[in-house]
């Protein structure tokens, strides 16, 4: 993401040196235009982040507080964690969170290892059938998951893996998109370094592990983050493959909570906060890679 990375370094010194604000071309921005921009930014901020805060606020309101009041009270009068206790007593929410964590972690490991290996084979190794292999991944990327999901379900039944967490992970555990992302990352490395290592007697595995992989850590981080987010947020596939409430992931557990206790808004709100908080924390720490992933993914997708 060139926008975010290129412009970041020179912004701070400029602001420190001179009080007036300039745009990316060094031109001054007029005061009224600046004010208008901030007003619009705050409106959009209220629209995008407001709903999350309202949910948080609802989850912190105690049983005696009116959540339907008009005019609405935006802040809880007496904030309490009571609703979070109730969620844990209603559904095994921490087990569900642990299931989600297991699925997401497995998805990260398999995607990173599998797509780095396959990407390297497509980009760097010479063999008959390489173009066919590349074509296989491109075609697979173009097939919408929704249109094959029933057959994925019957395949999972044939393998006797339906209603297991392994069954949840398997279909997307080495996504074609990630393989192609890694392939492009390896293709962008200068070939000379690996050639030198080759001449020095390094075999394919040594070149892969010692030279190629350390050079594509950034792309690997993008793959890891999107694999984690994809697995943690996924809904349709776990909904189809899991039927036993013991094995639910958080999203399926939330759907169950909503279906059974729809009128208990505080309870559902507490559940959604539990589900979204870890990802928002992850995003806050690793924003750069989230933005980079959008850029790289969109170009390929």
């Amino acid at each position, binding site marked *: 993401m060139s926008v975010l990375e290129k412009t970041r370094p020179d912004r701070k010194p400029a602001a420190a040196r001179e009080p007036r604000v300039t745009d990316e071309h060094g031109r001054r921005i007029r005061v009224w235009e600046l004010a208008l921009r901030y007003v619009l930014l705050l409106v959009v901020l209220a629209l995008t982040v407001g709903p999350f805060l309202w949910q948080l606020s609802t989850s912190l309101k105690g049983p005696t507080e009116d959540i339907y009041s008009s005019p609405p009270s935006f802040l809880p009068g007496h904030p309490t964690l009571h609703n979070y206790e109730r969620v844990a007593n209603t559904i095994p929410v921490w087990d569900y969170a642990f299931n989600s964590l297991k699925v997401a972690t497995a998805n990260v490991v398999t995607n990173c290892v599998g797509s780095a290996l396959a990407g390297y084979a*497509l980009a760097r190794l010479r063999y008959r059938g390489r173009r066919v292999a590349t074509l296989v991944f491109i075609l697979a990327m173009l097939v919408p998951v929704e249109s094959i999901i029933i057959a994925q379900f*019957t395949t999972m039944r044939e393998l006797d893996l339906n209603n297991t967490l392994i069954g949840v992970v398997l279909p997307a555990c080495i996504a074609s998109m990630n393989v192609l992302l890694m392939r492009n990352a390896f293709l962008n490395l200068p070939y000379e370094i690996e050639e030198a290592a080759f001449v020095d007697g390094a*075999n394919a595995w040594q070149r892969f592990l010692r030279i190629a992989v350390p050079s594509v850590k950034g792309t690997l981080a993008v793959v890891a983050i999107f694999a984690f987010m994809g697995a943690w947020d996924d809904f349709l596939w776990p909904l189809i493959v899991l039927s036993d409430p013991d094995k639910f992931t958080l999203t399926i557990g939330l759907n169950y909570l909503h279906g059974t206790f729809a009128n208990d808004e505080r309870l559902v709100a507490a559940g*959604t906060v539990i589900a979204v908080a870890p990802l928002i924390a992850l995003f806050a720490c690793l924003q750069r890679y989230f933005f980079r992933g959008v850029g790289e993914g969109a170009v390929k997708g």
Partner: protein
Amino acid sequence: MASSTVPTGSRARRGSRAPEDRPVRRVRRQLPSSPWLFAAPGLLITGVFVLYPFVSTVINSFTDRRTLIPGKFVGLANFRELLDDDMFWIGLRNSTLYVLGVVPALVILPLLLALLVQKNIPGITFFRSAFYTPVVASIVVVGLIWVWLLDERGLINSLLEIIGVGRVGFLSDQWLLLVSAMAVTVWKGLGYYMIIYLAALANVPRELHEAAAVDGAGAIRRFVTVTVPAVRSTMVLVGALSSVAAFKVFSEVYLMAGPSGGPAGEDTTLVMLVQRTGTGLTGRVGYASAISVVVFVVTVVLMLLVLRADRKDES
């Protein structure tokens, strides 16, 4: 998969023998098996869980297979049944409406948002990140947040009551529900496409803007004559991505209308119909596969249509 037949022991053997091997000999002896070993896990997973299901979806669509019954070849019976199935037409209508409603909003609004956050004014990185938050959240979380916001007694209705509009049944009326679900889709997608547009805007040469400004073009004029043509290919990309995603809509409507798509199923989308028909122990796999084939064909056609529109624009 031919690659899976490579003995796994060859990896360890090669690794231990590497140091004393001469490079020239290694080229001959090692490379033939090793590349397939690298690609094997990826090819295996893709083959078993994407390509095989794709082929079996097509084959199943010509059978009366059920979850527990293998089924037999029935020719075009499933597709003939589709033509008479009201629920299929409702699903096709809703999914198509979804594309028409969501795509224009997702092509234009994120571009405007990108222009808003493009200039590096103080605090702008915070705003960029904040606008991206809905993308990070699970669609289930987002759906449930909006179910509560749009509730008969929820926040939006109490605000509407205060300004004198009165309460609106966003989630009880068939059409309002569909529109509300579209709004949620747009709300969740804004930040994602905003980032795509930001990258495109960074590549617009500033000389173009300056030249237009010197010629006396105002901000709106410059947007239409400089910005839009410069990011046109990105707009096409966003149009293609968002139309394919919109046609496959499932979660938003499932969460807001319920698993059966509203009281009479009037808000069912095609993918909801696939899920409802084909899963469970009594699932009609053959019939659901026929609907899946329709979903696949329409997404491919949408993709081609958008890309062709791009080529026509350029000529």
